[in-house]
Each structure stands twice: as C-alpha cells, then as structure tokens.
C-alpha cells in the first residue's frame, strides 16, 4: 500500500525551483523527510495537502489526487505547521475542540477526542490554562494534538522538534514513534537533522535543492552495519580480560578489532560485527565461560549521515526510490536486535555485579 506517491513533481516560484522532478513512493509507517533550509520540505507538504498547485507532475495522498481531491485529503490527514500557530489567549482545550469541529467532528465528539488527544500527547492540568503561558515543548504538543484530534490516517509534521531542548526533542520523537506504533497513524515528519530521525523513522527521504537525493529504509543500512562494542573486567585468572576474550573469540572463528578511536580505554574495548542474535549469545557465553565481568555490550550504530555520505560517494547518480517493503523487514530485524540488546544489558549488569562483588565500578 502506498500512502504518498509523487511523480516528477515540480514546484517553481518566479525565482527558485522549490521542487525539481521529485518521484517517490512512501508506504505506511514513519517517514522522515530530511533536507537543509530551503530544500523544499514545507513546499512538498503544502502540495500534498492540496493547498498549493504543483507546477508540473502529479502527487497522490492515500490514493487521492492532490490536484482534484484536496478537500477529501484534508479530511483524512492532519497537519502540524513548522511555525507558531496558536492563539495565546485561549486554553489548549478550547483551541483543540474548535479545531476538531473544523475537521467536521460533532460538538460532543470534538470535546471527547480533545480530552483523549491532549492526554496522549502528555498535557494534563495545564490544558485549561491559556496557551500564552506554555513552554515551547507544551506548545509543540498542542500543535501535535490539533493535528491528531480528528483521528487522521496520516499526519504531516513539519519540524516538530524545532526549538526543543535535547530532552524535549527525545520526548517528541518518542511521541511521534507512538503515533504510528500505538495510534496506527502514518507519519511524514520533516527535519534538517538527519541524525535525529534515525531512531524514529522506518524510512528516510533526503531532499536537497528540491531534488530527491535518496529514499531508503533507515534500518536497511543501520542494521547491516551494526558493530558490537564489548568491554569486560579482568579477573585473577585472566589479568588481561580483554585479551582473553579476544583470544577466545578468535578460537571460535570470530574476527575482532580494536577500538581505533584512540579514546582513553580504547584498548579495553573489543569490536566485532554483529551478525544477529547468535553473536550476542556467543559473546555472553564466552564471557561467562572465562569468568569475566561484562561491563558493557552495546550496538554501535553508524550515524545515518555517514551512511548517506559513503553511499552517495559510491553512487552519486543513484536516485532510485526504494519501496518501503524492505524497510518493514529491516525494522523487524532491528526491533529484535534492540530487544535483545536490552535483555543482554540486564544480564550483563547482573553478571558484572556477581563477578566484581558489588559492581560499583561496572557501568
């Protein structure tokens, strides 16, 4: 199923070409639209909402043509603009109720959905106070709530992390993830930070100067290049725990590397390619057999930016839009790995605690 499809979509303003023959297919899930300032992200959203006609090409949202079915599209999607859009003198509840009615919800349903939605985005008692007194984080939540209140099938979130501090950013990203996983609503979210969409999105589309740079599933490449970083304690039996682990792994035919970062303690970190769950099991067993404490075992994901950089270098002209189908597979794999890592981490700390008799120095 395709949620958003564009075909040779162009938007030219008198002086700039905001979108240049953009063709892509986006499936359900969370899709990141990444690009620098002026890349054409907001322009694309306005075209997809049927608010601004394309100069050339076609686009469809939820199977509806943006040029002819704008009204129907806007009934089924939500939109969170990048700029401030909230009147300061009304409360979040009043505002969101009004916006729900603007989406066609009857008065009683509008009130009920508003209460639900504000709770889901994390606004409680403060929702009765005028918006003027809210923090940026709370305002972003109100903006998100008005985009979700009519239970759309798809939401366009234009730079939802704008102006948020690192904690607020993480909370917003987690919330966006939930919009898809818990609410079942597909998301198109824009950002100019490639990195921050890595963990949130199933699929990332990179645009630059109105051109499609790349469209691919995030887990595709973050998964295949996962590196495992392992740190162990020393024991009386093995004064050089790291060396022992390295040797034992070599004995089992697993290649390891030093942490070449030159950071303090780099010599105590063993890096190896994680092929799947077996690798995690293997490391845990080997460490246990050696009687060492497992200080740390974590995935080292490559930053999306790096991946794009290297891939772009390999194939600059490769502007193919992959389908989201392989993204789904990749995601499943990554979720498995993440769950596994969480489990292992628990085991690891327990193991470390046993080995060092207290584990106060185990991280």
């Amino acid at each position, binding site marked *: 199923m395709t949620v958003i499809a564009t075909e040779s979509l162009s938007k030219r303003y008198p002086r700039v070409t905001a979108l240049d023959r953009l063709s892509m297919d986006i499936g359900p899930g969370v899709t990141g639209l990444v690009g620098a300032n002026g890349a054409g992200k907001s322009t694309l959203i*306005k075209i997809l*909402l049927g*608010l*601004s006609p394309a100069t050339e090409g076609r686009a469809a949202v939820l199977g509806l043509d943006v040029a002819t079915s*704008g*009204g129907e599209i*806007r*009934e089924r999607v*939500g*939109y969170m*603009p990048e*700029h*401030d*859009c*909230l*009147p*300061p*003198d*009304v409360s979040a509840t*009043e505002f969101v109720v*009004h*916006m729900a*009615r*603007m*989406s*066609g*919800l*009857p008065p009683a*349903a509008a009130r009920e*959905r508003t209460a*639900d939605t504000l*709770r*889901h985005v*994390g606004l*409680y008692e403060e929702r009765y106070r005028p918006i003027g007194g809210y923090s940026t984080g709370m305002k972003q939540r109100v903006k998100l709530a*008005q985009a979700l209140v*009519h*239970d759309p099938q798809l939401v366009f979130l234009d730079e939802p992390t704008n102006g948020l501090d690192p904690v607020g950013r993480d909370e917003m990203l987690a919330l966006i993830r939930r919009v898809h996983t*818990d*609410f*079942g609503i597909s998301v198109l979210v824009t950002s100019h930070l490639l990195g921050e969409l890595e963990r949130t999105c199933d699929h990332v589309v990179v645009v630059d100067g109105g051109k499609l740079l790349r469209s691919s599933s995030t887990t595709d490449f973050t998964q295949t290049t996962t590196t495992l970083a392992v740190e162990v304690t020393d024991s009386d039996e093995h004064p050089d725990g790291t060396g022992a682990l390295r040797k034992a792994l070599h004995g089992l035919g697993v290649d390891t590397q030093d942490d070449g970062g030159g950071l303090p303690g780099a010599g105590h970190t063993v890096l190896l390619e994680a092929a799947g769950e077996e690798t995690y099991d293997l490391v845990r067993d080997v460490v246990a057999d050696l009687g060492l404490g497992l200080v740390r075992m974590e995935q080292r994901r490559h930053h999306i930016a790096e991946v794009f950089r290297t891939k772009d270098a390999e194939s600059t002209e490769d502007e193919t839009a992959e389908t989201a189908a392989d993204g789904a597979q990749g995601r499943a794999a990554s979720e498995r790995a993440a769950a596994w890592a969480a489990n292992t981490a628990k085991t690891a700390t327990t193991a470390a605690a046993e080995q060092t008799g207290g584990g106060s120095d185990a991280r």
Partner: protein
Amino acid sequence: MPADSTQIHNIGYRHYDGPRLGRAYATRSLFSQSLRGAYGLGRSAKSKVLPMILFGVMCAPALIMVAVAVATKANDLPIDYTRYAIVLQAVISLYLAAQAPQTVSRDLRFQTVPLYFSRPIDRVDYVRAKFAALSSALFILTAAPLIVLYVGALLAKLDFADQTKGFAQGLVSVALLSVLFSGIALVISAVTPRRGFGIAAVIAVLTISYGAVSTVQAIAHEQGSSEAISWLGLFSPITLIDGLQTAFLGATSAFPGKEGPSAGAGVVYVVVVLALIAGSYAALLRRYRKAGL
C-alpha cells in the same frame, strides 16, 4: 516493571468511527464561534466588557424614548426607525473598530489561518463565515434598539400599520448597513493584522470619511448647490446608507437641508452600496489567497 506516570494515564488510543460532518458543518461552526466571539462569548470575561457596554449604550436611548412615549401618551415616537442608526453611528463605529480586528486579525497575527486551510474548509468558506458572522453581530447591535422601539410603540398604542412599515424599513436599512460596514471593516482589519492598528484604521476610515463628506456638504449647502449635496453622500459609508434609505425606504435625510438623493440618484446609491459589498468580499478572498502559504 514500575508503573510510571505515562502508564497510569495511558488507557490506549481509541479510533474515531463517528460521523465527519464535512465542510458545511465546519463553516457553520466557524460562523457561530465568530459570532459569539464578536460579543465576547466563549472568551475571557475581559473581552465581553466592551461589546456588552456598547450593546447597552446602543439600546439605552431606545428604552428611554419608549418609556417617555408610553408615559406621555405621545402619538408618535421621537425618532424614525431609519434614523436611529444614523444618530448612533459613533457607537457602531466603535463596535466595529473593536470587533472586526478581533474577528479576523487574530487568526492572521497568530498564524492560525493555515490550520483552517489544512482542513476541509477552503478560503471561500472561511471568508463567508467571518463576513456573515460580523454582519450578523452588527445586525444584532443595530436591530435590537429598533425592536425595543417597535415593541414600545405597540405598547403606546401607536398606529399599527404605520409603525410596522417604519420598523420593516428600518430593519432593511440596518441589514444593508451591517453588511456594508462589516465588509469595509473586515477588509481594513485583514490588511492591518498588527495589534491596535486595525482598531485605529477602522475608526479612521469610518469617521474621517463621514467628517469629510459632511463638511463638504455643509459648504455646498452654504453655497446653495443642493445637487452637489446629494452626490457627495456617495463618499462615506454612513451617508451612503442615509441616501439610499431616503430614496427608497421612506427616510428623512440627515443631509444638510434634508437634501437627500432623488429616486434616480438613489439607484446610483444602491449600485455603489452593492459594489462596495461585493468589492469587500472579493478583497477578502484575495487577502486569503496566499495566507500562510
């Protein structure tokens, strides 16, 4: 696993399967919200003060007149229905200056307009809802004292046919006035969204145009050019209404020397009034063509 706060509150997401009432309903909702807002209803107590005071000021003279008429058993009301709004035009201007910016400028200033247009309604619906809302609010303000006068006249047992005819003419006149004045005030407010500027601009346009027209009319009256007086009335909103009702709604003109337009010139008045209303509507649509995009 410890139950953290998000889990206590999280009872799961529920989808909405109920009706979606679409564009027409959304437009009506926007209309009623804006109309209520024009009297401060559904808003803070502070925003109710001015419109309610002005409503009181608008109706008070009518109540006094009615009381006097009933008490003295007068055989006519001291004022024509059609004249009432002309006499109290300052109150109308103040009301518009306060409420027209409130109706449209807030959405522009706080950039809420794109949120409306990201929903099923389009700019035509938006402009119609806002235009209709302010016109209705102004009609309530101007028709209420006429109702007071009419009810009082019937209580004072004045001639029923006479009073009913005058009342009906008065209602037509204030209806036209409401649409004309609202259109002008909305256009002014929509192009001056900054706080305070809209208020000043609406007051300025309504009072300066009236001041200029009546001054020039007075000079023309001194020089005895009665023809000029009736044409000069075309250049301010309130004199337009005055001229139109003098020609067609049995009103006595408030122009100097009561030199209102003849029926022939009255047609020009009607055309100008309708053109201004249509022009305001078109200008508003134009204003929102790019709003937020």
